[in-house]
């Protein structure tokens, strides 16, 4: 959280979510939207294009989230996009999630997997991480087909890589 502007927006999102009394849901919806924005180049290009009127960009956001997210989440994303900070939205959301999780005395465990984890798997993974590292974590899943299979977990600077991709890379290194 080196950029004070990102930190400021993250703190604003967190404050609004807390004020609306739906912090966890808003946090999760924002996280998913940020992942979708990273995965979709067209969407990112549209929302970061300053030549497109702000109202038009806001309309795109509202159309995307209509019925799929809460009004609070939609309003927050629309606000950030209208402010011309769509490019920084993933970083803002990451900072907001960290701030939110920290408010619950927990740490974010970003899990990248080719398929989504079930609730049971998320709970067991959080328990396993707690047993392994002693940290209380909240699992945030990021769908990443490049992982191929298995899971890559990032907790701060620590990475626990159990992906098929890593094994293939190890196999590639063994060929050299």
């Amino acid at each position, binding site marked *: 959280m080196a950029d004070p502007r990102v930190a400021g927006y993250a703190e604003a999102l967190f404050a609004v979510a807390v004020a609306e009394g739906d912090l966890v849901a808003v946090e999760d919806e924002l996280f998913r939207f940020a992942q979708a924005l990273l995965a979709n180049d067209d969407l990112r290009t549209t929302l970061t294009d300053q030549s497109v009127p702000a109202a038009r960009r806001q309309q795109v956001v509202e159309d995307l989230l209509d019925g799929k997210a809460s009004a609070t989440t939609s309003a927050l994303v629309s606000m950030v996009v209208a402010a011309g900070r769509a490019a920084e939205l993933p970083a803002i959301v990451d900072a907001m999630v960290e701030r939110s999780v920290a408010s619950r005395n927990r740490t974010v465990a970003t899990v990248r*997997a*080719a*398929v989504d*984890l079930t609730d049971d*798997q998320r709970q*067991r*993974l959080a*328990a*396993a*991480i707690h*047993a*392994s*590292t*002693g940290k209380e974590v909240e699992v945030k899943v990021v769908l990443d087909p490049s992982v*191929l*299979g*298995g*899971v890559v*977990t990032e907790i701060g600077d620590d990475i*626990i890589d*159990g992906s*098929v991709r890593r094994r*293939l890379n190890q*196999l*590639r290194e063994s*060929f*050299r």
Partner: protein
Amino acid sequence: MSQRRNRLVAAPLIAVLGLVALAGPAGASGESVGACMADHLLELVEEEHGDLGHVLHDEKVQENLEKCFEAPNPILPETNEIIWGALSFFLLFFFMVKKGFPAVKGAMDARADRIRSDLDAAEQAKIDAKAVEADYVSRLADAKGEASRLIDEARGAADRLRADLAARAEADIAALRERAAADIESSRQQAIADLRAEVAGIALGAAERVVQASLDAEVHGHLIDAYIDEVAGSNG
């Protein structure tokens, strides 16, 4: 010197003796036969007190007159001539001894000194020439020695230069060979590595496709469960 002086003295003596010995009869008396006879007759007349007839018939007188027909002594001059001649001679001799001889002697000595000086100069010149010749010979020998030394040095330098160039060329050739061998080996290793990487890439690509094809929901679930178990099993 003394020999030259003796010759100077002997020459006038020989001239005097010759003059005395070879003097002619006419030169001896210097008067005619008639005057001789007249003188005798006059003397006899005076002795006979003027009796000329008696004188003419006297045989002794006849003999004396006959003597007038005889030639005078061809050698012995008249006494006065001897006196004058001797006086002149001695005057001349004195003059010669006092004036001529010193002048001649001085000229001769000067000439002898000049000749001796010339001889000495010639001798000195000869000595100098020999010294110059010896110096020239010495210098020539030195020059030959120096030339020989320079030639030897140049030959040695050329040999060393040739050896250095040859050694450098050998070293360059060896370095080039070594570098070429290293390049070849590097290229070979690079080719092997590239080939291995290519083969690995092909194999891994095939493996990845196989894995992707074989990964269904069930397998994904198993992989995630296995990962969770692995994380739970690890302790820190």
